[in-house]
């Protein structure tokens, strides 16, 4: 891989991974905040309203980070991936422009109203503003997933005279069959993150014996919403995504699963390190025939391994792809186990005193972020060596005019700025959590 290509990939990969820390929390949190606000109005309970406002403050800091790190994403299609943009702009320009027009205007307009307009809008208006922020952020995700889905599974296009694609069907693009499961999977993953963050804050309050009422509400909400969303990321959404990969990106499936040779009754690998020099898995632990069953619902079905595909069509970083996928799946399984245990104790009315599980909940919140990132890496690394599957190779999508040196300059610049604002962000969020919901915005507090 030449230097410039590597720099452009790192540039996009790093800024995208950092950006996605924030929207994955805000999208899920928007849903939970709207629920709190609805309960506050329905039950006329100021406690729920305070909770909604407390989480809205954490939401606002995350949202600001999401906005400022999101603008570079749209710019980088042009700055670092000019040949890709020229090639594909006629199609995915549609979804990206729609994201700005339909989603960003909606959420940015109503966020100001939601955060600062409670007195002006009244309770119903305040709820409505929150609902619009939720709608805007979930709509935004839809357009982004639609863009990515087109890169994974190009539809509704025709090749124009200059070798660039043109759109042929608006609804074909927006209802790309790839979108349904990728979108629901992504959104369920976002709710997992928000649930675990909420449960972690709740568990912290309970363990620290402070803000107990809020602690119980957040733990309960986090555990229940976490259970529902964790189950949804596995089944049906995760399962159906794999089935899409089986059908449309068979080489990707082989690489994800670490299956080097075509086999009937292929095993499902749990542990093992891909050895690209010898083309095998080292010290594998696997469940016999399970992969065949999961992909084709038949124990002895043949699953094509990497040997069935020409080497130039293999994903170019198979170990990283394999690890990303296994980390995602492994963590997802643990989310189900933890939230199931929490729900069981909740049902037995023992959760709020179960210190070991509260410790686990308090410390588990980073893992959904890791799992979501690993999931995106699986999708993006799995698509390699293609930028647009079977249409445009990644190596042919870069900006030829931007040298590796200039790319490295701005990559280092982003590393520096993101490190700085990342530290400040953590400081602010920890401080907000430490202040707690009971004095959120009600009285002046001096540091």
């Amino acid at each position, binding site marked *: 891989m030449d230097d410039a290509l590597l720099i452009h990939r790192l540039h996009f990969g790093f800024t995208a991974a950092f950006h996605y820390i924030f929207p994955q929390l805000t999208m899920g949190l928007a849903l939970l905040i709207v629920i709190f606000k609805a309960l506050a109005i329905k039950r006329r309970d100021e406690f729920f309203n305070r909770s909604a406002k407390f989480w809205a403050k954490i939401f606002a800091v995350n949202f600001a980070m999401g906005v400022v790190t999101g603008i570079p994403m749209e710019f980088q*299609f042009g700055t670092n991936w000019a040949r890709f943009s020229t090639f594909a702009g*006629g199609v995915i320009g549609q979804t990206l422009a729609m994201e*700005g027009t339909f989603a960003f205007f909606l959420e940015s307009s109503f966020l100001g109203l939601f955060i*600062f307009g409670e007195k002006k809008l009244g309770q119903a208006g305040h709820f409505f503003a929150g609902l619009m922020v939720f709608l805007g952020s979930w709509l935004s995700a839809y357009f982004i997933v639609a863009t990515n889905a087109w890169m994974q599974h190009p539809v509704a296009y025709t090749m124009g005279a200059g070798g660039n694609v043109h759109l042929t069907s608006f609804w074909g693009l927006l209802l790309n069959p790839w979108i349904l499961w990728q979108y629901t999977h992504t959104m369920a993953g976002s709710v997992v993150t928000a649930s675990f963050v909420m449960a972690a804050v709740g568990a912290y309050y309970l363990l620290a014996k402070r803000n107990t009422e809020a602690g119980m509400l957040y733990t309960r909400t986090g555990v229940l919403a976490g259970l529902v969303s964790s189950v949804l990321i596995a089944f049906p959404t995760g399962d159906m995504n794999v089935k899409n990969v089986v059908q449309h990106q068979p080489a990707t499936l082989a690489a994800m699963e670490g299956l080097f040779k075509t086999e009937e009754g292929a095993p499902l690998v749990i542990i093992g390190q891909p050895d690209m020099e010898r083309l095998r898995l080292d010290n594998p632990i696997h469940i016999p025939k399970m992969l065949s069953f999961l992909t084709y619902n038949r124990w002895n079905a043949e699953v094509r391994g990497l040997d069935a595909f020409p080497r130039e069509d293999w994903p170019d970083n198979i170990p990283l792809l394999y690890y990303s996928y296994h980390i995602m799946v492994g963590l997802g399984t643990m989310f189900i186990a933890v939230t199931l245990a929490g729900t069981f104790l909740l049902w037995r009315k023992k959760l709020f005193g179960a210190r070991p599980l509260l410790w686990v909940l308090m410390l588990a919140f980073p893992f959904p972020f890791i799992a979501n990132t690993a999931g995106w890496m699986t999708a993006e690394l799995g698509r390699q060596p293609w930028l647009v599957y079977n249409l445009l190779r990644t190596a042919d999508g870069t900006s030829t005019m931007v040298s590796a040196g200039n790319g490295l300059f701005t990559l280092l610049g982003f590393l520096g700025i993101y490190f700085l604002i990342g530290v400040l962000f953590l400081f602010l969020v920890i401080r907000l959590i430490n202040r707690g919901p009971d004095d959120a915005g009600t009285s002046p507090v001096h540091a």
Partner: protein
Amino acid sequence: MEILWFSIVAFMITIYVILDGFDIGAGIIHLFIAKTDTERRAILNAIGPVWDGNEVWLVAAAGTLYFAFPLLYASSFSGFYLPLMIVLWLLIMRALGIEFRHQLHHPLWKSFWDTVFSAGSILLSVFLGAALGNVIRGVPLQEDGYFFAPLWTSFTVQPEAGILDWFTVIMGLVGLFALTVHGSNFIAVKTGGNLQKRARATARVAWWGMLLTSIAALFSVNAIRPQIWSNYTTHPWGWIFPLLGISGLAGSFLFAAKGRDTLAFAGSALFIAGMLGATAFGLYPNVLPSSADPVRSLTVYNTITGEYGLSVGLIWWTIGILMASGYFIFLFRSFRGKVVVPAEGEGY
């Protein structure tokens, strides 16, 4: 279709400059006219609920450019790689200046973000002006439609010029003064007392800077891109744009002198719209002129995407912009009138 989409993109960029222009302008004067914490919070609360929505016009305009003229988007964004990355960094730091400042009530924390916010706004206004200058001057396009411009070469206007040369620096100063006037007018509308007096005084002084740099820019454009007048000869109705700009310029001065702040603000908005409209009208059908061989210029014709995408785009774009206008009217009405500085710990 080409004319229509060219106009739509030009319209969106103009709206962006007018809207984000006033909050960038507020940032330019933030350190200089707001002395106390309450005054600074008045400025931040005046723009706080709307700056993010204003900036969405940039994202939406870039997205629209991307889908209607993919090659133009790809060529200009990769060619202007360095200045765009710097603009992104400035946008990031400036936005966090607004959003992070009120999170912690400590004087050093606030001073830091005030400075970041103001410095970011000043540099952004210069870059926006210089960006326009680059589009007027042209860039060294290759046969395949791509180019790369370093930040500067020799500061002379020549085919291989960098982003900054004497002409684009003049344009950068136009940007700085125009947005200073525009932002000061906005703050004069939204505040009262001493802050309002200082905002009016700043607008008055900066107006002369805006006038002088605009005249300098006009003569420079005439010297380096005289072709810009040819559309005006063939289609004289285009003079409406410069005339609107000049009346905005005059209006901004006259109304400010009478203390009619809202009309003065409308004047500076009209000036921005008129001048951007005049530039777009003069450049058409070029969208990125070549500084060397005119045959290589990117035009609306050689960068536009397929017919079908443009027709469906027209439908959703119209719906989307009507909805967005609705939100904006609602948003600005909700926060209309003089800004009230909320208690410490609330608002910005």
